[in-house]
């Protein structure tokens, strides 16, 4: 299965992933619509891109009272069925990683990374490969972040 890999050591804090994601999903370059957010740590001079980890037993899924969230087995993607969503925001509060978003302009609407239906633009436009979408052996557990120590950019 293909997975979205995050490598903070390669991230240069250029925000291209956020802009690409926002444009893909809302035709606007607004960070508020982005499903990926980067967090800069000045102390370590390191930026960490935060994006949905597509947990197998996702907390958002468990907290949804209308069972509107399901795992798309083919894509390996935790997906929202908007026809079933009632907008109670249990998932936004429930995701322990903060990767479920509430639409600021439309408070009853939530969104999360949908892996762009199999071609995530954040990874496609990431110039350094901090976000990669590639075929990998299934990892043990839910761990998604791959630390490629020897490859780290100086």
């Amino acid at each position, binding site marked *: 299965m293909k997975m979205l890999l995050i490598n*903070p050591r390669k991230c240069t804090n250029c925000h291209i992933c956020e802009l690409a994601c926002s444009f893909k999903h809302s035709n606007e370059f607004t960070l508020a619509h982005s499903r990926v957010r980067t967090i800069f740590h000045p102390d370590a001079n390191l930026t960490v891109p935060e994006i949905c980890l597509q947990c197998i037993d996702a907390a958002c899924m468990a907290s949804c009272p209308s069972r509107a969230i399901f795992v798309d087995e083919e894509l390996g993607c935790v997906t929202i069925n908007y026809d079933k969503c009632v907008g109670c925001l249990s998932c936004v509060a429930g995701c322990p990683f903060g990767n479920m978003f509430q639409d600021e302009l439309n408070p009853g609407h939530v969104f999360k990374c949908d892996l762009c239906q199999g071609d995530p633009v954040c990874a496609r436009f990431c110039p350094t490969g901090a976000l990669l979408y590639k075929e990998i052996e299934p990892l043990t557990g839910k761990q998604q972040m791959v630390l490629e120590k020897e490859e780290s950019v100086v």
Partner: protein
Amino acid sequence: MPEIIIDGRRYKCEDAETILDVCRRNDIDIPALCHHEAVEPFGACRLCMVEISHPKWPGWKDWVTSCLYPIQDGLVVGTSTTRVRRLRATVLDLLLARCPNSDVIRELAEEYGVEDTTYQPRDDGDNCILCGLCVRVCEEVIGVSAISSAWRGVTKEISEPLREPPPDCIGCAACANVCPTDVIKVTQSSTHRVIWDRTFEMYRCKECGKAHITKEQRDWMIKKNNLPENYYDLCDICKRKVVANTQKNLSLI
């Protein structure tokens, strides 16, 4: 696998689907105000009427609500025959008399050639079409049953118990989100939410004060899902910061 014919085309369906399910799945437009995937179909708005016939019932036709009608093999469905359009126009005529100020109803009515209602429009009152979707979502999805329909006939309304702020309500605003005509009013500030005349305090992030849910909703979810007391203490931004910090530390090893 059963097959049905909709507007002259053949569609494969699953057992135990309704006509509306098949139409939705194949992008066939049927107006449906009281239907929501999260709850059982109810058949309140009567707008989803379609015409059905079957080769086994020669010379016989019927007009049914598609959201409630289970498919059967060989069914022939017409979604916009003259009669169906006329039935929907009648329903919209009545709905327009009930809610003359509702944009949703007005637009739909115009689509069916109803410019103005032929009945006496109600001049007081709200845009509620009494479809009961809010009541059903509160009961079936959220599971608190804070509101219900009250009275009968022309005086029927959706109401809190005794018209007082509902004691069981957790302020999740799901009812307001699903309401097809946007009747249920929610006022939101960063600290409080007012819905059904009851003021809820928001459960705010311990770090930054941002809030997603009310205190009552937080208590209810902790009880329902057996979560630790501090589960909802951070907002999404602060949770991301915590995770990013962990990832930073991992990257520095």
